[in-house]
């Protein structure tokens, strides 16, 4: 009976791995066929040689970094204060953080365009609106990562310990809370990075340079380069995940209490 279960577990796991990796492997192999008859990295050299790729990708990285900074500044104090001062609002805030999953991106972007293309807030052409939109889209990942990090430490007692030693809110946040949820913030940051790099609708409809619209455009004109770009974006995301696990292993997550 146990042996049967084990065989099933392996079978399901192999099916899952194949389902995930086969398209990726197929895309990778396809991306190597830019040169007729041989496997080569020509498609990769083509995209890295294209100034538009470098420019669009650099913009996406810039938007991602700004989104992460705004997300940290917005969601860390929010999650901290909700956990500390108004825990009764946690369920409501959690619901709000899930809204980007419920509202389609196209609906969201039209809402943004309609609201901010007229006074008093005529900012539809500003990159700030794009970053704000990305911040909303990355909210479920960033907020929940931070909240999970806060759950792993005794926020109330650590805050009170800081206060009793004379620390104000800023010192408590930067000296005590942030360092102890560093790994959670990094997780949220890298997930936000992946979201921003791959997000198409916002940048396209707000007419801002970014990697995803560039890739979408390339698909229409070229065959092998978009496949190479997909692999590059996967590699970047995986590198980000690798950094998370490295930092997590190296620095050590917060440990409160301990053995006697």
């Amino acid at each position, binding site marked *: 009976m146990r042996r049967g279960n084990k065989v099933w577990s392996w079978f399901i796991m192999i099916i899952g791995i194949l389902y995930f990796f086969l398209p990726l492997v197929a895309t990778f192999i396809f991306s190597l066929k830019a040169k007729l008859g041989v496997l080569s990295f020509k498609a990769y050299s083509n995209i890295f040689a294209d100034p538009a790729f470098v420019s669009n990708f650099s913009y996406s990285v810039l938007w991602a970094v700004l989104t992460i900074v705004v997300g940290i500044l917005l969601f860390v104090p929010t999650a901290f204060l909700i956990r500390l001062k108004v825990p009764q609002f946690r369920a409501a805030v959690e619901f709000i953080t899930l809204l980007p999953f419920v509202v389609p991106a196209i609906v969201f972007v039209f809402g943004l365009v309609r609201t901010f293309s007229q006074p008093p807030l005529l900012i539809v052409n500003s990159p700030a609106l794009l970053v704000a939109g990305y911040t909303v889209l990355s909210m479920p990942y960033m907020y929940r990562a931070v909240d999970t990090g806060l759950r792993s430490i005794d926020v109330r007692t650590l805050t*009170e310990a*800081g*206060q*009793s030693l004379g620390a104000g809110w800023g010192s408590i946040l930067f000296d*005590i809370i942030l360092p*102890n949820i560093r790994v959670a913030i990094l997780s949220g940051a890298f997930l936000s990075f992946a979201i921003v790099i791959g997000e198409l609708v916002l940048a396209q409809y707000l007419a801002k340079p970014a990697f995803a619209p560039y890739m979408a455009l390339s698909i229409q004109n070229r065959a092998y380069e978009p496949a190479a770009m997909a692999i590059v974006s996967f590699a970047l995301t995986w590198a980000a995940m690798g950094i998370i696990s490295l930092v997590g292993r190296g620095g050590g997550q917060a*440990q409160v209490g301990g053995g*006697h």
Partner: protein
Amino acid sequence: MTHLTLSNITKQFAGSTAVENFNLQVEKGEFVSFLGPSGCGKTTTLRMIAGFEIPTTGTVKIDDIDITDKAPNQRNVGMVFQAYALFPNMTVAQNIGYGLRIRKESKSAIKKTVEEMLALIHLEQKGNSYPHQLSGGQQQRVALARALAIHPQVLLLDEPLSALDAKIRVSLRAEIRAIQRKLGITAIYVTHDQEEALSISDRIVVMLDGKIEQVGTPFEIYNFPQTAFVASFVGTLNTTTAEVVDPGKQLLLMEGIQLETAEGLDGKQKGDKVSIAIRPERFNFIAQERKANILDCQIENITFLGSVVRIQVLVGSNRFYMDTFNNPFLELPKIGDKAQVTCSREAVLVLKA
């Protein structure tokens, strides 16, 4: 000189009263324990001194300065928490020095104080360790050092030993008391462990349902409990009711047995019912003839407790405990034997409520 004054403190949470009309004056260098069961308001009172809760009414004063509305980080009050609350991202030395860093003291001054504190808690070699590398007892000593490093006017300890095992608890409480005495710091200690409170305190405040039941030295609290709750909460006690026979001669009647008490029965009339209490160790088997406080009884059970033998006796319908020192050369009665036990008139306590 009064150092800490709590006047008419009341704290209400959403309609329920956690602390009611709490008044206390603490002398400089005094070690006062708040003792009571869970939910009696002891921690809430401590948190009001720390500034984590604001009293609904009443004032908190240190050295006659009203600090009731001051933020916790503006009071010079150190706190040791039950859960240690060491900052996991900082080393032991950084934890101890954090309060001084916040106060913008010089690096050399911080280093000097940290070294002094590490020596005080005998953890000189652990300065560079992280909290998770220490045992629970060591972590709590670091938490104590961190609270003391800022030279607080009052040190608050919120059940600091309850997460530790019994042996470490006993040794650490002695260490806390020794450090407190050495530094002469005023300390407020919250505990639900009566043995801990009795062993460590200059005075004990026994609390129930947000109110003070009794304030006194450990000796007073143990030997002369004023209420039935204090009597039952602190140590083992035999309690029953008796009838006042002669208030002037301090005579009581308990199920036909005449008892003499040393306590005044002012305001009591003949025939009034009173609650009385007798500590188990105050009973003796009758060795010589006595005129008063002779209790005929039957031995119901004998329990060996190490240095003490606890004998359960039936007096009328009352079951009393009697403690006697374990003496291997003393012949103890057997279960079912009839016997006579007695106690001094001072041992018969008349409780207020």
